[in-house]
């Protein structure tokens, strides 16, 4: 596909995503933060459903050698980088998607967060130019380099190549794990709703005499 075709496909995809995320109020930050802080799972469930569909879709196409997978070595830098990112997104109250979506709603705080994300990237480019770590993708050879804290490259395609088992089989295993987490959340929500209901009934029973006593006075 030509560069213009790629840009057009990306823009159309992004536009639909922007529209759907704005209308659904989905937020990746809330998917993690709300589950940890407030024990609410509205966004977490949506995130899990999306990951389940993607796992089956991607691994099915990887099985037949289709699709554009990401190609670069991974290592400790992914853990450290996303650790910093995780703190940052909760403090900023928005992740990479919601900064753009909230900016589109006129949220000046999101525009500010976006601006400083760019500043952070530029600052890191200055540091990288001294330390050259993590290694540039052009120098990666998909092998393990523990001195550089790099573990090489592995995904569903390499699993299929090494084991001879179709990638979709591994995808189904991941799907089952994600589904088990999803079911656990549903069960937890049902339990919490039941507890709330019981607490409501108990409060109603306790409040009934006072209400009954108050009624004649009101008359």
């Amino acid at each position, binding site marked *: 596909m030509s560069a213009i075709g790629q840009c057009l496909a990306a823009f159309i995809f992004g536009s*639909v995503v922007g529209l759907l995320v704005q209308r659904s109020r989905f937020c990746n930050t809330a998917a993690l933060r709300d589950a940890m802080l407030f024990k609410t799972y509205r966004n977490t469930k949506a995130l899990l459903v999306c990951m389940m569909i993607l796992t089956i879709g991607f691994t099915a196409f990887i099985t037949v050698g289709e699709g554009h997978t990401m190609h670069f070595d991974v290592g400790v830098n992914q853990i450290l980088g996303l650790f910093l990112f995780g703190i940052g997104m909760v403090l900023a109250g928005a992740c*990479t998607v919601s900064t753009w979506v909230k900016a589109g709603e006129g949220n000046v705080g999101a525009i500010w967060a976006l601006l400083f994300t760019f500043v952070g990237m530029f600052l890191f480019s200055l540091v990288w130019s001294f330390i050259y770590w993590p290694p540039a993708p052009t120098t990666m050879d998909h092998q393990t380099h523990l001195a550089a804290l790099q573990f090489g490259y592995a995904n569903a395609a390499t699993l299929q190549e090494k084991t001879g088992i179709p990638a979709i089989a591994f995808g189904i295993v991941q799907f089952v794990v994600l589904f088990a987490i999803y079911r656990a959340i549903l069960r937890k929500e049902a339990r919490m709703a039941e507890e709330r209901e019981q607490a409501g009934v108990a409060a109603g029973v306790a409040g009934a005499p006072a209400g009954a006593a108050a009624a004649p006075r009101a008359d």
Partner: protein
Amino acid sequence: MELFKKTLDPVIALTIIAVLDIFLFLVVGAWTVGGGETMMTGLIAKGVMGDQLHRIPFWDVVFKPDPTYWKIYISLGMLFGSIVAAVMSKEFYWRVPRHLSEWVMITVGGLLMGIGIRLAFVCNVSTFFGLTPEMNLGGYLAISGIIAGAWVGSLIYKKVLEG
């Protein structure tokens, strides 16, 4: 139109996005945001610094500023789609953080997100909607990092909320 009158269930929204992401994966690559943002940073820096930018090796070795980099247009598309949705549903209005503490948290948060994305080579979107569904080892490493980070961030956030 009903879509612009009430809030859409996020499960429905993310299901549609997942199907579209599979198409994008087949055509050009899975949904990602951090790469496009980095390229925008490079293009802005080049606009400000001109050829001086090439004195910083990162912008020659890792990300050569290129306006035809497709990932940029995902972000611009999200902005466009969000503006359309907000205007159509009459939800567009300027919201400005009121407290200094909010500005400080947003500034620090933005900086950490930018540094984190470049350190990891990935953002939250490519972690959850790209690498992990591809069963890339990096996805699992990134998820462990982001969960730990979100937990620490939540503790800080709670402290600030409690004043």
